[in-house]
């Protein structure tokens, strides 16, 4: 892509960045490692928003608030062991983790990112365009600029199925439990991440309902049929919740 860039603009605030983003052939640059690697020659203008984004990580009573400009490596260093493991699985190269930002990772919304499945399981909340309010990651329509992320703390488990351990997973399943409710999330080589919240403990019918949703996100491909992958998700969830 880099050879097609004609200009890089530096907006003074979010409002200006959003109006620039509406222009054809313009893309946001924050972290931006994927922009240089992709072969899209239609990008002519980069909107550098790095200076608008905080990289602060703040530990609060019920979780952590993370500036969207925080790199994955800084977050891995700050977060607990599960979050660190998930980040490393999502992005094995430390060099890239030093460049890739949390906001960029969420904006990319790749369902085969362990981190994206994790954030759906914990039902992370996003602050868009530096506004006062937060919205759930599952409600975000992809519009606007992520400025801050709230990652709730709790009992999170995540497991993956891949051809070999170091490969990108084709099925990822996560379970987030609180005393009152449980959130299930599934992703991998899928159309999107599937999220489902129900009472804790879940009943078998709840998991069956979730499976129906899950089956629709997976294509039939060389990794297996959608039914096979949904069954894998079911097995992983049963394993993580300890249910029969």
């Amino acid at each position: 892509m880099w050879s097609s860039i004609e200009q890089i603009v530096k907006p003074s605030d979010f409002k200006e960045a959003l109006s620039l983003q509406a222009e054809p052939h313009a893309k946001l640059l924050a972290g931006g490692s994927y922009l240089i690697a992709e072969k899209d020659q239609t990008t002519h203008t980069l909107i550098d928003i790095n200076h608008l984004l905080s990289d602060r990580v703040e530990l609060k009573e019920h979780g952590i608030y993370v500036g969207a400009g925080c790199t994955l490596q800084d977050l891995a260093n700050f977060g607990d062991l599960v979050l660190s493991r998930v980040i490393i699985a999502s992005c094995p190269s430390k060099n890239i983790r030093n460049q890739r930002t949390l906001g960029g990772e969420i904006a990319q919304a790749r369902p085969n990112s362990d981190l994206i499945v994790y954030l759906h399981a914990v039902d992370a909340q996003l602050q868009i365009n530096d506004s006062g309010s937060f919205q759930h990651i599952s409600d975000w329509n992809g519009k606007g600029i992520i400025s801050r992320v709230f990652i709730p703390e709790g009992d999170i488990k995540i497991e993956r199925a891949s051809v070999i351990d170091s490969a990108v997973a084709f099925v990822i399943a996560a379970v987030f439990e609180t005393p009152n409710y449980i959130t299930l999330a599934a992703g991998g080589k899928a159309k999107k991440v599937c999220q489902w919240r129900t009472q804790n403990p879940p009943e078998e019918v709840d998991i069956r309902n979730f499976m129906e949703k899950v089956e629709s996100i997976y294509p039939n491909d060389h990794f297996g049929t959608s039914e096979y992958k949904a069954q894998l998700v079911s097995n992983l969830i049963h394993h993580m919740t300890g249910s029969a």
Partner: protein
Amino acid sequence: MMLYHPKPDRFNLSLTVNGEVVEREIVTHLRLLDFLRDELRLTGTKEVCGEGECGACTIIMDGKTVNSCLILAVEAHGHEIITIEGLANMDELTDLQRSFEDHHAVQCGYCIPGMVLTGEKLLDRNPHPTREEIKHELSGNICRCTGYHKIIDAIEHAGDTE
């Protein structure tokens, strides 16, 4: 809206490379890797995959290892860069560079500048890393010749006295 440069396709770049302030007018789309190799003739930084997979183009930017093939030169404006040429002079190698020699850790040599810079950053932080810690740190650096054992040996034993 502030443009980096009045002319949209040119930019006055100023950064510190290996301790020296460098100023150049460059085209906006120039990658940092190309700037280092073609403008400054610092060819120790290698290009292999050009899309962030291999780590041959590893440099240290503000104290962190990054892939220079995935960074535009304008993003390095005002920042501090260290390349393999900035580690030592021709008369005296660093302990780690000597260790790479002693352990025969170099074959074709293309990945080695990145491996050495990554190893140096690890040893700065942790002078006695375990083999597992070394493998973890080298996760972004690929070697297709050595099978990694000798590279890990070299980092593990850097600074050991005979």
